[in-house]
């Protein structure tokens, strides 16, 4: 039991990293399955379109899924069209960028994994490149009549590939080189951007760590309190409905925050995107908004 607790603690502490690793593993596994089961290069003039579709379209779909699944994006977007201008345009623009960039970075994990694994596997690239005019120019130096036809057949015939590409790198080798180069550049960009964001951070390391822990805890406690409050409110309402009580019998009514208070704590305009909950609910309570909580009881 103790071991299970320890393992669970480990998983909870590193859940972000483990989550991303799980997504990458799943993407890599799906790519391998697609590559071996679904992918059949047509070996004709449609090679380029077919190969590029399998290489890029699933990556695009994974990007869209990444955006849809990211809860934080919906937190930022909900209700922004129907609100009056609560922020100045320059504040909104810079905040929007500060929110969009990390969101896109998180959504890009799965697509880039797909492209990297696909390039390392080399099937899709080989099929696409065997139909491209650039490959034709590189490999068909002597302008043989059936050179292009032979190139189309490369993905379906391994011996042909060895024949044609004896002097230059084969298409498979090219694909794997591009794949490793992509992985190396992604790692470098990730490291540099993390360094830059930490360097430009307005708070110290320990305070940043505390803020992350605080916002997570506040979110959990908010969910618990919301469930408790919703249960009380639902019980009161359903009891009143069945006993057909008049709403003038006030003592049993449950206080509910007003719509302005909800908007206030969901507000976007802050200097640091991580401060939204740390400041907003904290400041709202400090500013003595307790009068609003009795509004529901009137």
């Amino acid at each position, binding site marked *: *039991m103790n071991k299970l607790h320890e393992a669970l603690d480990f998983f909870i502490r590193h859940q972000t990293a483990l989550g991303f690793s799980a997504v990458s593993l799943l993407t890599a596994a799906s790519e391998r399955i697609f590559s071996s089961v679904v992918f059949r290069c047509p070996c004709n003039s449609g090679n380029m379109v077919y190969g590029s579709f399998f290489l890029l379209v699933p990556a695009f779909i994974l990007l869209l899924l990444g955006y849809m699944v990211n809860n934080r994006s919906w937190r930022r977007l909900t209700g922004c069209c129907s609100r009056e201008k609560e922020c100045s345009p320059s504040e909104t623009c810079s905040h929007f960028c500060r929110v969009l960039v990390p969101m896109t970075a998180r959504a890009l994990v799965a697509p880039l994994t797909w492209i990297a694994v696909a390039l390392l596997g080399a099937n899709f690239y080989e099929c696409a490149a065997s139909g491209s005019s650039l490959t034709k120019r590189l490999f068909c130096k002597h302008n043989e009549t059936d050179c292009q036809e032979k190139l189309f057949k490369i993905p379906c015939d391994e011996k042909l590939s060895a024949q044609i590409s004896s002097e230059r790198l084969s298409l498979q080798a090219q694909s794997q080189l591009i794949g490793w180069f992509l992985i190396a550049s992604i790692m470098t960009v990730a490291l540099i951007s993390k360094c830059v964001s930490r360097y430009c951070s307005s708070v110290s390391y320990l305070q940043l760590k505390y803020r992350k822990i605080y916002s997570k805890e506040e979110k959990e406690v908010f969910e618990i309190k919301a469930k408790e409050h919703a249960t009380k409110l639902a019980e009161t309402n359903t009891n009143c*409905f069945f006993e057909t009580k008049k709403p003038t019998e006030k003592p049993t009514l449950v206080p509910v925050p007003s719509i302005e208070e*909800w908007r206030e704590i969901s507000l976007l305009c802050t200097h640091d995107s991580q401060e939204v909950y740390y400041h907003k609910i904290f400041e709202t309570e400090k500013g003595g908004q307790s009068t609003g909580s009795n509004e529901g009881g009137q």
Partner: protein
Amino acid sequence: MDAFQTILKFFMNRKTAIGYSFMALLTMGGERVFSLVAFRCPCSDENFRYGLVFLFAPALVLLVIGYFLNSKTWKLFTGCWVNPRKIFPRGNVCHFFYVFGQITLNALVAPVMWLSVALLNGTFYECAMSGLDDPAYLEAVCQTKSEKCFRELHKVACDKSSMPFSESDELKRTLQAQSQILGWCVIVTTALLSLLTTCCASCQSKVSHLQLMFWRVYEGTEKEQLEQIFQLYATKLSERNLKCFFENKEPEPISLPAFQAWEDASQLHSFSSSKQHYSMIHKLVEEGQKGISEERETMLDLEDRREIP
């Protein structure tokens, strides 16, 4: 126990994603089973019809099942024959189409999954298109092939044509490639459309995100509470009735909601930012049942000067 609770909570938080993945796996499994067990391409002039039926009929069945299983459908349509005003209330005619649109979008998930999986597999499309008689299409596919291609394309799916192996293999691969490209297009279009609709719906939401979260929690909790209270009152009422029947006594009164109260509570609810009611029952309890019928009467009076039947 604590560890088990944590694991359960982890999965409950991601139940939508898990639900959709499970549905996708089920669709893939079902498609594989159909493709291997039930599907036998006739390799004649009937290819086109056969392939299309296998491609679209299961999608239609899944759509109908999707409508059946959505409780909002029954909430929308119950009692509408007796009182058509229920689904087209005065002053809010578009609400029906909005709700029906939401139900349709939810029901369309399974058919679209079926179509994408079937197209990515390629078997059904290959059979269907090899039987297409359109001269322009035949010209495009059999462009660089022998004359036999025009006559024997429908036999390619069963490997029964008299064309050389390389030609028939290439034709099969071409048809499969077309099918898979079409499948990816379907998936991309669906994903783009759902992202755009979710974005627009979210943007135009009258309530802020946290209040929306609370509203969802409240709806779930109210549903649970209703079931509990139904159970409680049903037990009380049936006990009283059976006791009075067997003991031949006069029944003591139990207060239950009136018919009109049930009607009002079953209406579809839309959030009003001025009043902040989280459900119809919440609105009924705070404004009183009379308030709602008076509101409707007043609206009818102003427009029709007629009484409600």
